[in-house]
């Protein structure tokens, strides 16, 4: 009984280590193809548009409403202690350090990460990836490397937009609903904001973008078993990317802001 339990635990640990190793090798190979020609600019540009431009509406709306919600929630708490003047600072710090990158990352994981896994997974189960190989095209170079690069570049740009709109959401609620002075709100926002806040947010975004693309490509590339396999790969890509994103968010926050 006990031996069985230990054996199961051992097997699970080995499987986890094997999966982590396989993922690390996949990531390294993908990264190595980013800097080695030939480069597939069209694939990169297409994925960049899909990730950056076409995710704009969903990220923009999420950021706008989140900024507004933080302003409202902060007001209900801060009003008791008459420190409403801190709300602008709270909103801008929460948005640039955390909510911008995390919410944009989660939205993009659901939208683009899932699409990447489904697209590459379908290519795998319909022999399109084998067809690429027979046409003297390295699938890692053609399918994976441009997507990793697109995620790495597009998400920071999306997060910049999310930062601005998140602050705008807080501003709108405070000015239109809570009666704050517009100029005082803007001054308080600018006084609270430091370059490091935005920089760390963008670093997080770049890492999240890379992780989302990596998970989409990895699970899609290794999918098998027809439609069901592609479905499982898509689910796994989104779930694992979301968990990793939150875990790395904590680690980076601890690294930069724990003092």
């Amino acid at each position, binding site marked *: 009984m006990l031996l069985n339990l230990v054996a199961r635990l051992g097997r699970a640990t080995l499987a986890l280590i094997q999966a982590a190793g396989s993922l690390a090798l996949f990531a390294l190979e993908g990264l190595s193809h980013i800097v080695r020609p*030939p480069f597939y600019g069209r694939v990169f540009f297409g994925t960049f548009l899909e990730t950056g431009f076409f995710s704009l509406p969903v990220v923009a709306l999420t950021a706008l409403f989140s900024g507004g919600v933080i302003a409202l929630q902060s007001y209900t708490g801060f009003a008791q202690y008459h420190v409403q003047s801190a709300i602008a600072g709270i909103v801008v710090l929460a948005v640039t350090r955390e909510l911008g990158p995390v919410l944009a990352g989660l939205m993009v994981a659901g939208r683009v990460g899932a699409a990447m896994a489904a*697209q590459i997974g*379908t*290519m795998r189960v*319909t*022999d*399109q990836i*084998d*067809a*690429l*190989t*027979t*046409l*003297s*095209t*390295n699938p890692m170079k*053609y399918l994976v490397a441009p997507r990793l690069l697109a995620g790495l570049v597009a998400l920071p740009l999306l997060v910049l937009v999310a930062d601005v709109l998140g602050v705008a959401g807080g501003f709108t609620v405070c000015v239109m609903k809570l009666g704050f002075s517009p100029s005082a709100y803007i001054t308080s926002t600018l006084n609270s904001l430091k370059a490091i806040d935005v920089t760390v947010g963008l670093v997080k975004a770049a890492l999240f973008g890379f992780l989302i693309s990596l998970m989409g490509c990895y699970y899609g590339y290794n999918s098998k078993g027809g439609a069901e396999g592609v479905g499982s790969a898509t689910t796994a890509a989104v779930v694992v990317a979301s968990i990793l994103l939150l875990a790395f968010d904590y680690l980076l926050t601890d690294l930069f802001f724990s003092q």
Partner: protein
Amino acid sequence: MTSALPKIRIRDLHKSFGSKKVLDGINLDVPQGTSFVIIGGSGSGKSVLLRCILGLIIPDSGSIEIDGENILTATDKRREALRGEIGMLFQNAALFDSLPVWENVTFGLLARKRLKRPEARDHAGTILAQVGLDPSVGDLYPSELSGGMQKRVGLARAIAATPDILFFDEPTTGLDPIMGAVIDGLIVDCVKKLGSTAIAITHDMASAQRIGDEAAMLYKGQLIWQGPASSLMNSGNAMVDQFTHGRREGPITMELRK
């Protein structure tokens, strides 16, 4: 001396997946310019053999030579260059559904930078005409084509770079008999016109006889018979005869759970 060298030579090829032996000591010579057909039931190892030759699956042991060069010991770069001399028609055509037909047809040429995009567009029209499709089909996407048209586009992609070797994986599967005959006719025309060496795997006997000069039968990972494709229906081998005539009774038994 060189003329005696087979285009493709396979020696003692083995491949297992876990405890299941899929290829069990395959020896095969395919002379230059020959159209070779491999028949066999589902799960007999036909597709695995083809994928080993293409380098999509690494065999456990043995050698695969193309023009005397063992591709299994070649560098990745050399293997990629060798693939440039090979065209492949996949069972379900395996067209890239995110690209229009003309880009599918000229994908290999564009990837190897042998053509620029405007030239490739024109070249695709010419190749599509060779497989009986109107050049305007080039602007459509694979999802807009019928199964027969997809197969023809797949054939166009396979021959676009005028390869030395052509592989066909179940070229008539899923097609009606007339469209199957059309595809076979196109395959024969393309192989003759290019002077290529071809290997087709199929379990469609009519197709095997139309396409092939030589034929072999694969059973449980071994080549159990080889001879002219014209003698497939009266090979003198009890297993081949049972298979080609589709007889239920004979030396080949299906393991069915009761």
